[in-house]
């Protein structure tokens, strides 16, 4: 399955024959609004119903969480002020969404969205889904990619690959890979902008360069309209008004894609009323500087690819915001090419992701994607400068090895600070984290030769390994990320989500219960074989498993299945503990493997 985890909407698609199809929910909708509402009555609502709650409980309804992922609270300070929900600084300056007494990490909120996408997909497919390719903006850095991976894990998904959105879209356009040529993919979503230049040849999709802005999208167009509406209203920071004006602005923008002017009557009760009219020309004048920023990125990407604009064969549009007429007109004027609109710009990314998922599952070896790392990686050297290790637009996987030594006798540890960005000084780049090499042999200063290999994998995520050359000792590496979750936190949250899955989420559809029941039957049988319970307990558990299996075969209703699951659950509480703790032990062991 391929999942497009968007700022505004999310959706899933699967490979179908030579093509791919998007998965729709019971109402026939493909797009799931990326909105989570933590309702005061204790329910957690995701998607369309959550979006409908924006006006009722604005301070408990979280949208555009993708903008928070993999960033620090300090970086988000300015942006958070315009949001109707509260973003506070948590531990290590990580952003947390404050809902009542509870704080939620952006990863866990993204996980709720992914979980709903998964549930809807399972319903549509009639079978459970575990593996998925999840897309991210090409311009996402290491921290944002890692955070997205964590969110997928928290949602119970095995993330096959973090795939760049424009690359995914290119796949959707040239599915059979027979249309050789050079394509420019212009992807303007709700909150992010990406442009990638690809060469397609013999089924190989090779990204030559990418550029973008993770904080530029259709939301910003809405915001500009919202600011104009606010000018006609009394000044306020009331979350209800902020949400209502934002929603109204989005509506106006959509109208302006097909109409020359749009009007709106907004009645905000005690906060006043307004009648607001805006013409397309006014709207276009307001957003023109933002559109120009995207065109600057386009020109840079073309240059980085070592090409001229006239060497681009095809221009592909992706993302809902490319429906804005000014965007299309300006891009066409710049490239001299009529942009392709054959695939729905909202669906292209998910469709492409599903094709890549199929490739990764080993079903299709005719296609191959070669992507690049969007931003350079470097190490801080003395004096606050950054020495580049891996240059942006390098095809991934890519690696580089550097040798370090010690400065003091018997020093057994070395710390490295790793940065991502193009600027010369550390303070202008993003600190991804500290790598602490431990367990070096005690030797006189300067004698150890520690070869550290920095490898960027096919997800665009950095992996570091180190070895002392003289002794061959593998140094252990402890990673302290400056953004996002530590490995311990992810593990803890995954356990929490297993334990609280039932209470946290919206009441599941029948298929979910069925999936769970099936999993329980299989899981319990496995666990029984491994555990040494007393015979009487084993017998009781076996009986409950048989009962549940019988209900499953008979196609029993949800309530019956649930009751049978609960029965079995109670009996297996002790086994579950065993299995979880052994799973944790195993996970810990793997973490310490080099």
């Amino acid at each position, binding site marked *: 399955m391929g999942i497009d985890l968007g700022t505004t909407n999310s959706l899933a698609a699967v490979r179908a024959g030579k093509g791919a199809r998007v998965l729709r929910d019971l109402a026939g909708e493909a797009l799931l609004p990326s909105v989570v509402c933590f309702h005061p009555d204790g329910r957690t609502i995701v998607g369309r119903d959550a979006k409908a709650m924006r006006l009722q409980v604005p301070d408990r309804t979280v949208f555009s969480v993708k903008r928070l992922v993999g960033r620090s609270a300090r970086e988000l300070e300015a942006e958070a002020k315009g949001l109707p929900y509260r973003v506070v600084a948590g531990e290590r300056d990580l952003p947390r969404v404050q809902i009542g007494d509870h704080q939620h990490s952006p990863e866990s909120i993204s996980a709720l969205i992914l979980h709903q996408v998964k549930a809807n997909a399972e319903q549509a497919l009639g079978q459970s889904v575990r593996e998925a390719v999840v897309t991210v903006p090409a311009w996402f850095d290491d921290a944002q990619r890692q955070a997205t991976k964590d969110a997928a894990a928290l949602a119970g998904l095995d993330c*096959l*690959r973090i795939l760049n959105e424009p690359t995914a879209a290119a796949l959707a356009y040239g599915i059979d890979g027979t249309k050789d040529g050079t394509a420019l993919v212009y992807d303007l979503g709700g909150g992010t902008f990406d442009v990638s230049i690809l060469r397609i*040849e*013999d089924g*190989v999709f090779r990204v030559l360069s990418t550029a973008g802005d993770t904080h530029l999208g259709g939301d910003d167009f809405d915001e500009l309209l919202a600011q104009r509406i606010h000018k006609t209203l009394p000044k306020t920071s009331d979350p209800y008004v902020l949400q209502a004006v934002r929603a109204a602005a989005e509506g106006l923008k959509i109208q302006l894609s097909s109409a020359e002017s749009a009007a709106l009557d907004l009645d905000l009760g005690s906060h006043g009323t307004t009648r607001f009219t805006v013409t397309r020309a006014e709207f276009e004048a307001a957003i023109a500087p933002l559109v120009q920023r995207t065109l600057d990125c386009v020109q840079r990407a073309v240059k980085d690819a070592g090409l001229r604009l006239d060497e681009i064969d095809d221009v592909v549009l992706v993302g809902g915001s490319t429906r804005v007429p000014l965007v299309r007109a300006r891009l066409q004027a710049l490239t001299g090419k009529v942009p392709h609109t054959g695939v729905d710009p909202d669906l292209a990314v998910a469709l492409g992701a599903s094709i*890549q998922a199929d*490739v*990764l*599952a*080993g079903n299709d*070896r005719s296609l*191959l*994607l*070669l992507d690049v790392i969007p931003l350079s990686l470097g*190490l801080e*050297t003395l004096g606050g400068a950054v*020495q580049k290790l891996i240059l942006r637009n*390098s*095809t*991934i*996987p*890519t*690696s*580089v*090895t*550097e*040798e*370090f030594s010690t400065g003091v006798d018997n020093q057994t540890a070395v710390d490295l600070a790793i940065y991502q960005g193009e600027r010369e000084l550390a303070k202008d780049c993003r600190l991804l984290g500290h790598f602490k090499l431990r367990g070096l042999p005690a030797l006189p200063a300067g004698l150890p030769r520690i*070869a550290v*290999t920095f*490898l*960027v*994998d*096919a997800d665009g995520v950095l*992996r570091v*390994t180190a070895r002392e050359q003289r002794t061959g000792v593998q140094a252990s590496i402890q990673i302290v990320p400056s953004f996002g979750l530590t490995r311990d936190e992810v593990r803890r949250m995954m356990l929490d989500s297993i334990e609280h899955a039932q209470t946290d989420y919206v009441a599941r559809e029948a298929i979910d219960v069925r999936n769970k029941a099936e999993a329980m039957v299989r899981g319990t049988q496995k666990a029984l074989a491994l555990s040494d319970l007393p015979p009487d307990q084993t017998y009781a558990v076996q009986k409950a498993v048989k009962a549940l299996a019988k209900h499953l075969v008979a196609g029993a209703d949800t309530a019956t299945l649930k009751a049978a699951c609960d029965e079995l659950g109670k009996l297996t509480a002790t086994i579950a503990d065993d299995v979880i703790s052994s799973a944790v032990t195993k996970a810990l062991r793997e973490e310490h493997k080099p």
Partner: protein
Amino acid sequence: MIHVPAPDPFTVFGVPRSLDLDARTLERRYLALSRECHPDQLRSQETGDCLAVLARAAEVNDAWRILRDPWQRAKALLESASPGVLDRNKKLDPGFLAEALELAEEVAFARGDTIAPLRARLQQALDEDLVALRDHVGRGDLDAAARRFHASHYHKKALQDLDQKA
């Protein structure tokens, strides 16, 4: 921090150590190697994610980055044929450096109409550098090739500066 050189790109690609490699042939070789080594193609064999597979794929990508660029290819060739040859030949003739300074000055003062002809001159100088470098390598004079390699940097930098003005 000492850079540990990547494996010799000519060996990774299995091509002769030469500056005269056909660009199209190299590209085909790269695509074929990628199909062989990229973790995505090996994923179904449960080995797609292991470090050895990633490292091999990285080797191929990194070798391609070097071989596709004639200058980086030249650098790799010089270093593999005579390690340290580039470091030993860093001192360039003061006469050449004075010329380089004049060129840089011309770039700094280039305006409007003078930009295009200057760019053409610099591009020609760079092309000549590559021809000369190839000749030196052909004659086995690696020291001269290394000096010419260093000299080309000044032409490249001048071109870059000129492009930034445009």
